[in-house]
Every structure is written in structure tokens, then in C-alpha cells.
């Protein structure tokens, strides 16, 4: 990994980490939902600090360049996040539908 990439990674993950914490303080983000982002940014910082370890793992796994390994980890992380969000949206959708039905049936009863 080049030194530039390492610096960019560290800066970006620091920013996202700080962003997470300030958003929680402004209560715009629930703690349960933000933990995963904090873990993600810590992971990035670790990877950029211990670049030698990353290079060693990438080499053992047969990656052409260590940076590819870093990207793969990030993509995997994002895919899991997207999937979890999708599930959450479906659950919310189902809950709103139930409420919708409940209100309609209650109003019908009152007539």
C-alpha cells in the first residue's frame, strides 16, 4: 500500500468516526445503528496503520496487490450493511402496513 492511500484511509475513517459520534450526540442516529459504522472505521484505521500485516495476508491469499484486499473488505462490509438495511426497510414496511390496517379496522368498528 502506498503512503498516500494509507493517509487517505486514516483521514476518511477518522472523519466518519467523528461524524458518527456527533450525530449520536445530536440524537439523529441511534446508538445500535451506529456501532457498525464505528467498527468499520476502526477496522479501516487498523488496516492502514498495520499495512505490513495487510500485505502479508493479501500475499498469502494470492491477491495481485494489497490494495485489492482492502477494497474487497470494504465492499464486503458495505454489502452486508446494504442487506441489513434492506431487511430493516421490509420490517418497517410490514409494520406500517399493519398499522394502516389496524387504523382502518378500528375506524370501521366505530361507525
Amino acid at each position, binding site marked *: 500500500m502506498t503512503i498516500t492511500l494509507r493517509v487517505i484511509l486514516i483521514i476518511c475513517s477518522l472523519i466518519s468516526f467523528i461524524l458518527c459520534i456527533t450525530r449520536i450526540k445530536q440524537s439523529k442516529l441511534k446508538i445500535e445503528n451506529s456501532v457498525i459504522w464505528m467498527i468499520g472505521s476502526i477496522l479501516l484505521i487498523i488496516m492502514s496503520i498495520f499495512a505490513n500485516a495487510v500485505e502479508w495476508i493479501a500475499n498469502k491469499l494470492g491477491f495481485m496487490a494489497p490494495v485489492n484486499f482492502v477494497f474487497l473488505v470494504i465492499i464486503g462490509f458495505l454489502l452486508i450493511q446494504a442487506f441489513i438495511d434492506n431487511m430493516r426497510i421490509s420490517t418497517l414496511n410490514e409494520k406500517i402496513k399493519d398499522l394502516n*390496517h389496524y387504523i*382502518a*379496522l378500528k375506524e370501521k368498528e366505530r361507525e
Partner: protein
Amino acid sequence: MKTLIIIPAYNEELNIEKTIKDLKDNTNYDYLIINDCSKDKTKEVCKKNKFNILSLPINYGLTSGIQVGMKYAYKNNYDIVIQFDGDGQHQATYLKDLVKEIENGNCNIAIGSRFVNKKKPKNMRMFGSILLTLAIKITTGQKIKDPTSGMRAYDKKAIEYFIKNPSLTPEPDTLVYMLKKKMKIKEVQVEMREREYGESYLKPLKSAEYMINMFFSIIFIRAMTRKDKK
């Protein structure tokens, strides 16, 4: 048997009076209009005529409409629920044939089908229907000649499945689910008209999306449905 006709309606102010008149003239079953938060005067028209109407506060689509109808029927102990379009395509005279099939114990679900005795026309619009028939035949072994028909009667057992499983829709994939649950499905020959006013739930552009959804649901999800344990 206590029978309820549910009529999902979205922006049907021009059709709904005719539909209810048809129902009242030709049947003596209870009915319930499900107003899916219409933007036009559907609700006002129904109130003015003192129709039995249930109004949803948020527009949530056809599936949600049928599901809330099922909940209502379950709560009020109906034995048979009929799904009937409010846009004037369906004719109420055929409903007693569907109910008769269920009352005689010939089936759990009766479908008002356009193609029992008649041949399916081979045009673009029927192409999807032919493919769906094929998919259902492959996954369940039963031939359903008109899988997209919106005129269906469900018995108590089918209603209970709808209550228990909120992923069930009033679409062809649910038929596969029901067949896998060892429910009997029978088709009854009916005639349908073309709609007169307003737009259908299935707009031409949406048809492709609808077909893809149906295929994935039938092949990967509904076909794997397990039988109930006794």
C-alpha cells in the same frame, strides 16, 4: 355459508356505483369496498350511497387491500371470501357458481376463469399468462388455465393462511403456495368485460416487473413451500 365479497378500489369513482348495483342485483352476499386511499371521490360516492366501505389511511396497493379484507372477514367469522374487481370487469352473476363449488366441498379456492372451455387467445397480453400457467404446471403439476384472474373465492382454511402469512398476495404465486399446502383449486368458466373508466392496477410498463416478480416468487420461494404437519 357466510360469504363476503371484497372489492379493492383505488380511484374508482366512475365504476364503483355500477359494480355495487351489479352485486346487489345478482347476489345476496355481504360486500365490503376497500378504499385504498383514493385521490378521487370514491369515498364520498360510497358514503352518499351508504355502501359498506373500509377506508385505509395510506395507499398501500392491491395486496394490502386484500389482506385487510381478509382480516375483516376473519374477525367477523365469514366462511368464504370473494375477491372482486371494482372496475367493472367482473360480472356478479358468476359469483354463485364459485361459491357453489366451495359449498359442495369440491375445492378450497375457486377461480373465475376465462379459459376453461374457451381457448386462450395467442397475443402479447396472454403471453405472460401462458408462461405463468407453465410455471405453475412445472412446480405443482396442476394446470391453472387463467392464473391472473382477479376473481377468486377462498374458503375458511385459505383465509386462515392469509391471516397467518402476511407475505401472501392475491396473485398467481399464492396459488402455488396453496397447492403446496394441499389445498384444492378449481376453475369455473366466467366472462369478463373490458374496463370502462380509469386505470388498472397493472399498467403496461409495470407488467414486465410483475412477471419477473411472479417467476422468482413461484420458482424460488413458493415452490419450496412445505406441507403442514398434521
